[in-house]
């Protein structure tokens, strides 16, 4: 009876958790002095609000500066840079995530897959495993607890506006997040096939490769696509620091109050994210039904 209870919550405990979450949200709102009835009275200029959202219905492909030049080349360049920085950052993040994710998981040294009685390599792996995993977990916690915009500021002051600064600003925090998620997915993947292959004489490395990795891979791929979508948005926002991505053009148009231009760039970004979503969805379906 006690074994059953310790595994789950009773209905009253569950209720307490829900009430606790709601109370925390209300307390935070009260502390910040949020008052829904006063929210709109703080709006400084309804005219600006109207203009900005009105422009959403009338995006433009010619500049609002009156010079009459065509916006498409700028949109294209902004999109192009956004994608290139996101791809480079995400590529490096995948390397960091894969290597650190594997090391941060306990699958490669813990449990029956590594048999302490079978040779010195396995004994060594068992001995150093916890140390390596602990160290790597601290590193990835550090990487992901600093936001990409803070990393960008850091690298900007170190390198100035350079492509490497933007790529690293995306790659480090994203690598940290990927590593954390990958390691959890590896640790949660079912180990039945791996333990059978172990019983068929497989070494621990080979068994992890064949028996465990494929079980975590579909989830890892799905999550990586989601993070790529996030990387596109981060890459666009990095433009506000002067990198040539969509954010650069958006901030320039914003400063000139060219809201219709701003919306053109925003729609381009939405379109880009949509295309990536369609692409990843197509890949997932192909994988499932092939």
């Amino acid at each position, binding site marked *: 009876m006690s074994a059953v209870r310790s595994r789950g919550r009773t209905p009253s405990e569950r209720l307490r958790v829900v009430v606790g979450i709601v109370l925390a949200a209300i307390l935070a709102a009260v502390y910040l002095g949020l008052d829904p009835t006063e929210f709109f009275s703080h709006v400084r200029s309804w005219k600006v609000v109207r203009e900005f959202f009105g422009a959403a219905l009338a995006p433009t492909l010619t500049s609002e500066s009156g010079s009459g030049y065509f916006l498409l080349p700028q949109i294209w360049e902004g999109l192009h840079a956004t994608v290139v920085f996101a791809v480079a950052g995400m590529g490096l993040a995948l390397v960091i995530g894969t290597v650190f994710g594997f090391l941060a998981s306990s699958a490669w040294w813990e449990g029956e897959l590594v048999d302490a009685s*079978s040779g010195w390599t396995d004994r060594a792996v068992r001995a150093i495993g916890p140390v390596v995993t602990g160290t790597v977990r601290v590193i990835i916690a550090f990487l992901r607890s600093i936001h990409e915009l803070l990393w960008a500021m850091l690298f900007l002051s170190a390198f100035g506006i350079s492509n490497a600064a933007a790529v690293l600003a995306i790659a480090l925090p994203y690598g940290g997040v990927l590593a954390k998620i990958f390691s959890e997915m590896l640790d949660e993947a079912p180990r*039945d*096939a791996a*333990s059978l292959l172990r*019983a*068929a*004489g*497989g*070494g621990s490395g*080979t068994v992890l490769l064949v028996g465990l990795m494929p079980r975590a891979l579909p989830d890892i791929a799905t999550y990586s696509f989601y993070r790529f979508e996030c990387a596109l948005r981060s890459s666009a926002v990095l433009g506000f620091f002067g990198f040539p991505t969509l954010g650069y053009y958006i901030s320039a148009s914003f400063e000139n109050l060219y809201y219709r231009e701003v919306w053109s760039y925003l729609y381009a970004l939405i379109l880009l994210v949509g295309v990536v979503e369609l692409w990843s969805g197509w890949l997932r379906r192909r994988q499932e039904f092939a």
Partner: protein
Amino acid sequence: MTWDLSVRNASVRFGTTVALDGVDLAIKAGESVALVGPSGSGKTTLLRLLGAVLSPTAGSVRIDGTDVAQRSPRDLRALRSRIGTVPQDLRLVPELRVYQNVAAGRVGRRSFLGLTRDLLFPAQATLTEIHTLLDRVGIEEKLYHRVDQLSGGQRQRVAVARALYQEPELLLADEPVSSVDPARARDALELLCKVAAEHHLTFVTSLHHIDLAREFFPRLVGVRRGRIEFDVRSEDVDEGAIERLYSLEADELLEEGATR
């Protein structure tokens, strides 16, 4: 050159639970044996001893004439690489394709890179060899199918092909009829017995279905509460022995109740 097996006075304890209690069993090379008995009797533990994945707490297990405990780690891996197992839950990798699951059977004898190649860019010779095995188990058209799209019976055939791809000397199966629907139980056993005979393998399976065991196996070993109850040719097994093997469950329950 298939292997003979000998278990001498072997006991296995998990904490305070005694799973096997002084078991003696000798199986000749090329012999087919069914371990019968109620669930929880120790059949699976005995199979794990024979598969060299579990060491006895006391006593010894000799496979191919050598005590398993005396073997070096390298030697033990080489031994395990020639023991094909079809476990009750099959233990396939559902995300991988059939040929990849079968290729994984040779994990004990392939290098890391060699196996990576077998999975991603298999050589024509490898595919041909796997296709031949699939043909033997009757699912040659499923070579490139993902395992999670196969039926239970087809999956079991993949597991059998994987065991055969190990080029085993010893074939072990744990309750092979429980992973297929009852109508296919006979097919599953027919297949296992056929491949064991064709390859002249030593073949040991656990099976709680006594009628099927009598029909398919020349020798039955009755296991109950960690001990060997009888070890007879299947035409010699008498109804009384079978009744004792299974009916004693009742007083076990009583005993369990009394110790609580």
